[in-house]
């Protein structure tokens, strides 16, 4: 899995490419947590355009980042969800804590 980071104001935008499963979630978690701390981001926007598939391992990473960002009083958004990714997020109740940006 590949990710490109883009900081705009106090928002960290992450463009993701590849399948987000347990295998890829480990390096994704580390890179993302590192970048949040380094850029001191308040807002996080995860762009799933290049992610055709995600399982509950991805949900775990998003909840983890939601926690980091919440501690700073920030907010997490996701965008460009494939039907499969959206369904996994819905079933996991993720939309109760994060928002979808159209």
């Amino acid at each position, binding site marked *: 899995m590949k990710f490109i980071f883009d900081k705009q104001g106090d928002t960290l935008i992450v463009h993701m490419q590849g399948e987000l499963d347990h295998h890829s979630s480990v390096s994704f978690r580390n890179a993302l947590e590192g970048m949040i701390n380094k850029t001191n981001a308040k807002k996080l926007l995860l762009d799933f355009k290049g992610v055709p598939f995600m399982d509950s391992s991805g949900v775990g990473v998003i*909840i983890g980042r939601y926690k980091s960002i919440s501690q700073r009083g920030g907010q997490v958004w996701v965008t460009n969800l494939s039907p499969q990714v959206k369904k996994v997020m819905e079933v996991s109740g993720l939309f109760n804590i994060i928002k979808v940006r159209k």
Partner: protein
Amino acid sequence: MNKKNEFKVEFLSISQNESFARIVVSAFAAQLNPTLEQLADIKTAVSEAVTNAIIHGYENKLGYVKIHGIIDDKGITISVIDEGKGIEDIEKAKQPLYTSKPELERSGMGFTVMETFMDEVIVESHVNKGTRVTLKKYLADTSD
């Protein structure tokens, strides 16, 4: 219950093989001409069960994960089998948000995803012997 096709695969419990398992099961399920959503459901459920075998069953020690797939008149049955540590309390394990590995940022939603995405989920487990998760999806075979 007319068995129409069948496969068995086994592979090492390393995380690279999670995507391998998804591809193998998708290629097998594709013979039933499922819709894209049905195929995605099966792929997702298998990904959850295989990940659990690797992380929880073998706890990242090296072992073999086995998958057994059957296509019959009713649809597809996929069993994911490990010979790992087993589950002590299956009812508790199945609860949404329950995870024994919060330090790995597990969401505890694996079984919930499997049960939502598949028509039947059967969990059999014996402590120190291993776990078998059987996933069924009812699908009419529309191929010739």
